[in-house]
């Protein structure tokens, strides 16, 4: 291979990368606003679904969640009374940060949880999105957030083969409740 060849090859690859870069930037510029808009709509729908009786769900406070990502505490109000809180938080899973919503009533009893995004192993860790798993959290208090391998009615049953992801969600829910408790202790208006 002589010098002329090396230059030719370099130019070849540089040209392809440059063209690809332009095409990808344009696609990104077109699709990203749509993606963000749909994501925001999904979040609104998920908030509404968690506490349906709330007349307004407003952002009350932000905090630093797992991985330095921004977590948000929402306050749900109906007829002038606080009916619950929703914490938008992240938890470190097996292969990704699991993004979730945790809804609790003012006494910290869990109303429900929702998984917004995750990249866990399909058919294993990704099953944290399944109804049976998420449903286990409903009505539980913080002291019952213990992951058990095998059947359980009182605690959280791990997804078989995906204990790490199951634990990540459970600990994430616990951390979300702790964050909310600390925030309310500091700010009595919350």
């Amino acid at each position, binding site marked *: 291979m002589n010098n002329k060849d090396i230059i030719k090859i370099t130019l070849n*690859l540089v040209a*392809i990368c440059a063209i690809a870069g332009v095409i990808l930037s344009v*696609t990104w510029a077109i699709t990203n606003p749509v993606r963000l808009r749909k994501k925001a709509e999904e979040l609104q729908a998920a908030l509404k679904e968690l506490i349906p009786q709330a007349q307004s769900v407003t952002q009350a406070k932000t905090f630093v969640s797992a991985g330095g990502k921004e977590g948000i505490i929402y306050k749900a109000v109906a007829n002038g009374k606080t009916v619950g809180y929703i914490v938008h938080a992240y938890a470190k899973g097996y292969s990704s940060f699991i993004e979730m919503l945790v809804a609790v009533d003012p006494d910290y009893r869990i109303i429900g949880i929702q998984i917004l995004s995750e990249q866990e192993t399909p058919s294993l860790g990704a099953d944290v999105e399944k109804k049976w798993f998420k449903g286990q959290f409903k009505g539980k208090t913080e002291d019952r957030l213990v992951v058990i391998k095998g059947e359980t009615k009182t605690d959280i049953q791990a997804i078989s083969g995906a204990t790490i992801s199951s634990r990540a969600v459970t600990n994430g829910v616990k951390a979300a409740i702790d964050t909310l408790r600390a925030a309310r202790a500091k700010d009595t208006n919350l």
Partner: protein
Amino acid sequence: MKTNFMATSYKKLILNGIFSENPVFRLALSLCPAVAVTTSVKNGFLMGVAVLFVMTMVNITVSLFRNLINPKVRIPAYILIIATYVSITEMMMRAYSRTAYKQMGLYIQLIVVFAIIISRAELFASRNKVLPSAADGLGMGLGFLGALVLVGAVRELIGNGSIAGFHITHGSPLLIMVLPTGGFFAIGLLMGLFNWIDQKYYGGRPGGGGGGGHH
């Protein structure tokens, strides 16, 4: 393989990808996604459409620039072209088809390394004009799409008792068919059926231009 094609040849090229050189059943290429995503008709269809788009566009692009790409770096060049189209597909899905993206996101990125795409770029598009290359990509893509839908249908029917989400049977189906093991069963059975039909009605020769079945 440098030939001039007539109108009838295009039809032949497309049919070639669907039947006599079907990527999954005859060439046994890209079996990994054929097993991984075909737990239902819908998933198989979505993956098939993504591959159809990427394959056709890659074939057209490679053919257009075949005289400009230096043979010494042709493989990296093809990979870059494939990766570009896969990224476009992924971004589009993320914006316009979010539920599908949630289910398939991980596998869409894997299209970059599908053997069937790079093998068509290398074996066909780099040696032929644009239109025949487009026809080849279209045929191969349709063949892949059809195979994935078929495998998905067999697995969904036996494993879940439904086809494309519509329940057909009652009672407990054979769960193993939606597990990875069932993917191999379904592909093996369909491949056998394909060969049997080919032998019986067309007196076809067994095995096409096979090769390793990686990804």
